[in-house]
């Protein structure tokens, strides 16, 4: 593997409204240092993709943003969301996760009906109004481009859906909570091309009203759907810029090599 100088970084400033930002975030798994000084600003209502080789820390970093690393790793530094450091001990993590939703690599619907998959967390968060629940069910499934396919089978088990449908159900389940920010960790990597392009379309639609941060291994996907891209390498953020700049005129050699497939 080629070695690159981690001090060579190019982190572009964002002149848009910021939805969430990290300030010098460090992550340790026991003694091993997985993320170094990660400072990024994520623009509101835009799609930002996180790219980088396997093991470069993309998932680790993403999971910090809604405190999913709490029991797994030691996360230091500040994560600013609505002028609050949500990485602080005093923060109500459940509340954080209601504002910042997450979709995982492998679809993980509950072993419940399609309807209950969406409504379960809502009910547990104290939403009991029938009309409100019905409205959220319908709009979230519509927003996730799944409504037409399942509207007659809402009582069927979610496990009977195809992988792509399950993943869109998981997206719907997340957005039914009306989060601000949606984190996705390789949401399409286990899916066929058709399901993948459906998910991409869904995300582009959602980016009108959600801030989306997505980890992907698929360069085309990153360049197709995202507005901003961050390149990770061995726990360091090497380059962060508008996607078109990253893919056409990267500032750092490591980024260029990675994008052109000439990496290590």
């Amino acid at each position, binding site marked *: 593997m080629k070695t690159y100088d981690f001090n060579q970084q190019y982190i572009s400033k964002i002149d848009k409204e910021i939805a969430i930002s990290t300030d010098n975030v460090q992550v340790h798994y026991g003694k091993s240092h997985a993320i170094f000084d990660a400072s990024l600003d994520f623009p509101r209502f835009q799609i930002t993709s996180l790219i980088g080789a396997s093991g470069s820390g993309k998932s680790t970093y993403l999971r910090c943003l*809604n405190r*999913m690393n709490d029991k797994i790793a030691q996360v230091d530094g500040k994560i600013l969301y609505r002028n609050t450091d949500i990485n602080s001990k005093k923060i109500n993590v*459940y*509340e*954080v*996760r*209601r504002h910042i*939703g*997450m979709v*995982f690599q*492998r679809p*993980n*619907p*509950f*072993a*419940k*009906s399609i309807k209950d998959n969406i409504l*379960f*967390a809502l009910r*547990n*968060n104290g939403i009991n109004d029938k009309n409100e629940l019905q409205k959220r069910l319908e709009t979230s499934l519509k927003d996730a481009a799944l409504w037409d396919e399942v509207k007659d*089978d809402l*009582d*069927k*088990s979610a*496990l*009977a859906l195809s992988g792509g449908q399950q993943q869109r159900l*998981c997206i719907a*389940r*997340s957005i039914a*909570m009306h989060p601000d920010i949606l984190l996705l960790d390789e949401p399409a990597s286990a899916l066929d091309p058709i399901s993948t392009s459906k998910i991409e379309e869904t995300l582009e639609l959602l980016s009108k009203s959600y801030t989306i941060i997505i980890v992907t291994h698929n360069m085309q996907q990153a360049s197709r759907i995202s507005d901003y891209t961050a390149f990770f390498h061995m726990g360091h953020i090497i380059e962060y810029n508008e996607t078109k700049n990253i893919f056409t005129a990267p500032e750092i050699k490591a980024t260029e090599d990675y994008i052109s497939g000439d990496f290590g």
Partner: protein
Amino acid sequence: MNAKKSDKLATGIIYGLVGIVVTILISLLGYILYNGVPDINWHFLTSEAQSFSAGGGVRDQLFNSLYLLILALIISFPIALGAGIYLSEYAKDNWITDIIRTSIEVLSSLPSVVVGLFGYLLLVIQLNLGFSILAGAIALTFFNLPLLTRNIEESLSSVPDLQREAGTSLGLSGWKTITKIILPMALPGILTGLILCSGRIFGEAAALIYTAGQSAPSVDYGNWNPFTETSFLNPMRPAETLAVHIWKVNTESVTPDAGVISSASSAVLIIVILIFNLGARYLGNKLFKKMTAAK
């Protein structure tokens, strides 16, 4: 030897071994049922055991077995559930957990005679419970807890972590995630284990001989007040179970039809356990289907 031949040979050997196991099981079951079933009749199931004359039944023993089973489960299930949840969801990988796991393993391989004698010393003598259903049920709890805990822990751990992450990422607390998402998914496995444990409890004799005792005083099945002496629900009375009855009839009975009673009782015992096992499979499958397949 080429690959095809050795494959055939290996397959043949495996089939042969399976055949031996199945033959042993079937002949054992067949023998017990063949000898016992002809003597099972309504009278046998509904009348009292006789000490000296022929024609006794197993009504009280059958009831005692079921009653003890239910009490033992009522005591052991909540404890096992708590312990199972702790081990699967909360326990950290450290030496304390290792000690707990090892103790459970040791406990589960403890011979039931030892459990019985321990129960006798602790419950019957020290705690002054006497030979009683309560002492028996607690002894059965000692006997049952390790396996049931393990079963519950395994059923819970077999639920993919992705489900826990799904719950957490939706802002649910750990406890809600466990009780509302993980536990329902583990339910078919837990239920199957519970019923299989019931079969084990139902057939257990050694742990009960010195705890629940070897006598079945006549009780009044119309008296529903468990705090009265004669009530069939009275947990402080001694209670010989079916399995203990079989042991006793075979070792010290003087009734002329001891052979018949022993084989018929054995058949009843086997049939009940078979029903438990088949029921466990059926219920487990059905629950799982209900949760996973289309409604």
